[in-house]
């Protein structure tokens, strides 16, 4: 097998658990396959392992169930907050007056609370529900982003403002990946803050049924059965029991 072929095989094998990677690569070395055979062998094992993961409900809830719709809705919140920020802090004293600039400070605050709470808890929950399929969840999150970024044309707002929600979202993912835990009182406080803010927004015509999905992760964390500790999560590949 050529160096390039072996490099490809090793790169593919990175998708496997360390012990299984060692065993599979060692078996390949013993049988002296061609590069193509080696790639097919490892790819076959990787595909089987991925398919096994998707036999559970967790990746389905994490990727198409949470990452996709939350991303879709949070894009809108990111845009609304960016517009507010522009109007409040960058266009003061100018003749520009958009409808959003007349919104009450309370609504602006509620939007920020929803963005922070819901992005963080969604990121945390997506990672802890199905750590091994995080790439698929990321793809589901970026699909709406990509679509919106390509269509977004606004004179005074950069495209990246749509991705504002990714900052707390990635923070939630990292917090979970580093073994962080959200205790029940904190989760309940976050869920209440998110729900109250959402209710205020809904009462002021910011109502969209899908918005309410955003507070789902916070409430899931608040009402899920208590765990004995983070160990149980690690033993299950990071999956919340």
């Amino acid at each position, binding site marked *: 097998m050529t160096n390039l072929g072996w490099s490809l095989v090793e790169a593919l094998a990175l998708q496997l658990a360390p*012990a*299984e990677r*060692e*065993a*599979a*690569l*060692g*078996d*390949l*070395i*013993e*049988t002296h396959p061609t590069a193509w055979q080696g790639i097919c*062998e*490892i790819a*076959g*094992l*990787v*595909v*089987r*392992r991925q398919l*096994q993961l998707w036999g559970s409900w967790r990746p389905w809830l994490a990727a198409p169930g949470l990452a996709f719709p939350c991303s879709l809705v949070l894009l809108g919140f990111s845009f609304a907050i960016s517009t507010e920020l522009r109007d409040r802090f960058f266009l003061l004293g100018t003749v520009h007056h958009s409808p959003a600039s007349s919104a009450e400070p309370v609504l602006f605050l509620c939007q920020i609370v929803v963005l922070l709470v819901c992005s963080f808890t969604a990121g945390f929950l997506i990672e802890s529900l199905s750590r091994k399929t995080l790439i698929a969840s990321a793809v589901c999150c970026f699909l709406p982003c990509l679509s919106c970024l390509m269509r977004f044309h606004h004179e005074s707002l950069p495209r990246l403002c749509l991705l504002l929600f990714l900052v707390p979202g990635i923070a939630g993912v990292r917090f979970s990946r580093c073994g962080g835990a959200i205790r029940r009182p904190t989760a309940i406080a976050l869920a209440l803050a998110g729900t109250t803010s959402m209710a205020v927004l809904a009462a002021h015509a910011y109502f969209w049924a899908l918005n309410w999905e955003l507070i789902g992760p916070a409430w899931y964390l608040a009402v899920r059965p208590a765990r004995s500790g983070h160990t149980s999560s690690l033993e299950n590949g990071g999956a919340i029991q």
Partner: protein
Amino acid sequence: MTLGEFEYLLITAAATLGDNAYGAAMREAIMQATDRSCSIGALYTTLDRLEAKGLVRTWMADGTPERGGRSRRMVRVTPAGKAAARDFYHAIIRISNQAPWATPHPGDAG
């Protein structure tokens, strides 16, 4: 405990190889016996299933120079695995007893 055909092949290969039962050796044994390919993916996912059923036990062992020092996944058949394989074997023998290909006919010679 019922077994599938490939599960039976794996258990039999592991039992035959004894202390030398690990991934590559078992693949080789299965391919020689069946004249069919045996992918690493099928081998390791089936081993996981057998281990979950309590029919085999696996552990990681040190590698050898011919495999670049990479560790091996060793396999040992448990008593439950041996019993399941024995049941499967006897079922095959019983059902095959009267099958045309199992009973040599005078005209089949050559």
